[in-house]
């Protein structure tokens, strides 16, 4: 490792400031993924309702229509609970308190207090605002809407202190169609992306390099068989092969949204069985070249064993290519996950950027960009950082690469 850091390529890489910055960004993402993985954000948190549906994020001010709709949501919640309590002849708070939205817990009031507030709210809604079609263009109703929001706030007070901060984090990017927190889901998806990216690219690079080096080094029938396998696999359109591989798992224990970790296995299998081809080709070519170099020939002439030469000379000299391929495959995995999830073949039972983009598809038509924006932005930054990182790697370690 120390020798690696002193190598010309490593020094060239470290001089590249953009590359170091992108490495830093990848590091932050990785730490976030680890944080989520260690339980920092539970799966339940991604499914919890935190807001009414489609509430915009922190800087977009809602129109009067949307504000009324949001306030009505809270008021209706309490109203339903009160009616249920009346029928069952219970204290309404017992029922209402179950309806908490994450840290936002309903206020503990008496039945009368609840009813007074609800009556006032419905008076505004049904008598004053009813039948106003162009509310957004009628600023004179602003005070009424504000009062409505006050009532909602009294019924559902926004917590203060640490809980308030947590609630703010949950809500600052708004909510999706099910009232789930976009920010929590988007950040949780980092873990999913890293999970898929790391597992598939590490396994693929290992398999690919091993087979590639073996094919080139031993030649003969081994080379023929390996070349035949990857020619065959790469002749089937990539997305079709992925889909078929995943469909094979349909109806098995791996096709179960309630066990999200198991349901990723088809994705791993599909990615690994297609991704190894890239590194295999590259490493095979490079090994062919190294095999003909004088020092390897000399080692053979001296009488070193073939295994020894493979481990001592070939593998260290293709390490940079493995690393570059790892990085390329990582990008490929993240992007493919999004497409597969969109087709309903990818991640199941937990959020991912692909699922968020799929869910957001129809929101765009109603000018709600928070979900697609959050997923796209997080993914964009990570993929961009990896792209820059890969470029810098190739620039530093691959003499054939042109920048």
């Amino acid at each position: 490792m120390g020798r690696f850091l002193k190598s010309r390529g490593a020094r060239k890489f470290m001089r590249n400031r953009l590359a170091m910055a992108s490495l830093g960004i990848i590091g932050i993402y990785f730490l976030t993924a680890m944080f989520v993985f260690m339980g920092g954000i539970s799966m339940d948190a991604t499914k919890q309702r935190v807001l009414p549906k489609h509430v915009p994020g922190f800087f977009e001010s809602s129109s009067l229509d949307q504000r009324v709709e949001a306030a009505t949501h809270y008021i209706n919640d309490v109203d339903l609970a009160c009616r249920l309590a009346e029928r069952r002849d219970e204290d309404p708070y017992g029922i209402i308190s179950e309806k908490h939205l994450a840290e936002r817990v309903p206020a503990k009031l008496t039945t009368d207090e609840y009813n007074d507030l609800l009556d006032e709210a419905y008076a505004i809604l049904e008598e004053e605002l009813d039948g106003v079609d162009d509310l957004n263009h009628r600023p004179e109703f602003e005070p009424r809407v504000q009062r409505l929001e006050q009532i909602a706030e009294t019924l559902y007070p926004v917590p203060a202190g640490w809980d308030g901060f947590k609630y703010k984090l949950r809500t600052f990017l708004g909510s999706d169609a099910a009232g789930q927190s976009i920010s929590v889901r988007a950040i949780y998806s980092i873990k999913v992306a890293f999970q898929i990216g790391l597992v598939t690219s590490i396994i693929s690079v290992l398999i690919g390099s091993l087979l590639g080096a073996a094919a080139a080094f031993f030649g003969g029938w081994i080379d023929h068989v390996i070349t035949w396998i990857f020619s065959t696999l790469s002749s089937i359109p990539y997305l079709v092969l992925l889909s078929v591989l995943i469909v094979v798992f349909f109806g098995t224990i791996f096709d179960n949204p309630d066990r999200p970790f198991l349901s990723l296995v088809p994705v791993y299998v599909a990615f690994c069985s297609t991704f190894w081809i890239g590194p295999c080709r590259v490493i095979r070519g490079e090994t062919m070249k190294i095999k003909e170099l004088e020092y390897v020939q000399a080692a053979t002439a001296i009488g070193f064993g073939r295994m020894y030469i493979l481990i001592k000379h070939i593998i260290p000299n293709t390490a940079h290519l493995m690393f570059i391929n790892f990085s390329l495959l990582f990008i490929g995995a993240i992007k493919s996950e999004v497409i597969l999830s969109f087709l309903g073949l990818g991640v199941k039972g937990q959020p991912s950027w692909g699922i968020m983009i799929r869910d957001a598809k129809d929101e765009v038509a109603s000018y709600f960009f928070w979900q697609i924006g959050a997923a796209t932005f997080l993914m964009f930054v990570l993929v961009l950082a990896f792209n820059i990182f890969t470029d810098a790697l190739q620039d530093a370690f691959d003499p054939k690469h042109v920048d």
Partner: protein
Amino acid sequence: MWSFILRRLLYNIPVYLGIILLVMALLRVRNPVYAYLGKNADEKQVEQFEKSFGLQDPFIVQYGRFLWNGAQLDFGESWKYKGTTVREKLLASIPPSLSITVPALILTTMISITVGLLSAFYRGRWIDRLLVIAAVLGMSISFLVYIIFGQFVGAFLPKQAGWGLQPFEISGYKPWYTMASTDIFGVTVPYPSHISPTTWVAFCLLPVLISVIVSMGYDTRFYRAVMVEECNRDYIITAKAKGATKNKIMFVHMLKNAMIPIITRIMTTLPFLITGSILLEIFFGIPGMGRTLITAITDMDYPMIQGFTAVIALLYILSIILTDVLYALVDPRVRLS
């Protein structure tokens, strides 16, 4: 040259047989009948189904039968669409796919080669830097996002804003031609007639544009790298020392040398354009090959999956052989012997 093509064809036969084997085997990992009819299908139904499609025979017999029938372009009948053969489905879905992929490929290649050339020629200057940054940024966004925003800007916004101009449709695909057929020496040859360009613009131009924008980042970077490599070659200086103009150097000397990687790139993208358009076809409701195939996969319509993969893989292998032949045409160093 013919012997070369023949040899390449022979060499690719095991690969092709492997593809069919792989797909058929994968599809039989689970009992295809249960996969199609559902877990709770009653036994009689299953037995009848298996009989009618010959699924009780040993795998090798089924494999042989598929190959034998496939050689006569008979891939059987779709399970989902009773009474429709796979061949009919295939023939019906090719024209819509090509309506998008062919213009997209031509546009992308022309634009990105030019941009790549310019970028390489002005290497290191601001215009090059700008293009390189734009390509990397563009590559980092998901295809899906391009499509969603493309539809939003191209079709939804004009409709909402009521500009009176709705250039693009994003659903309800209608073909922009009617198929007619004619008899040539007793063979029925279908051909498109009554071409309607406005229909094409309405249904196909937006997906084509999205496809071009998505591919631009990758292709520009690739062509730039190719051109930069050519720029550093000694023959460029020789040409300059002869008094050649920049344009002559770029478009005569460099381009002919760069043809080899360019051809490889184009030929290997050909089959990928079919798959790349799966997403576009789904979003725009275009009944092309990609969408039909993915629907077949999620429907477990096995004869469709097998037939489509067989044809797509064949096209892929043919395109690779064609690539080798084209090499020989542009590079005098390559001999087809």
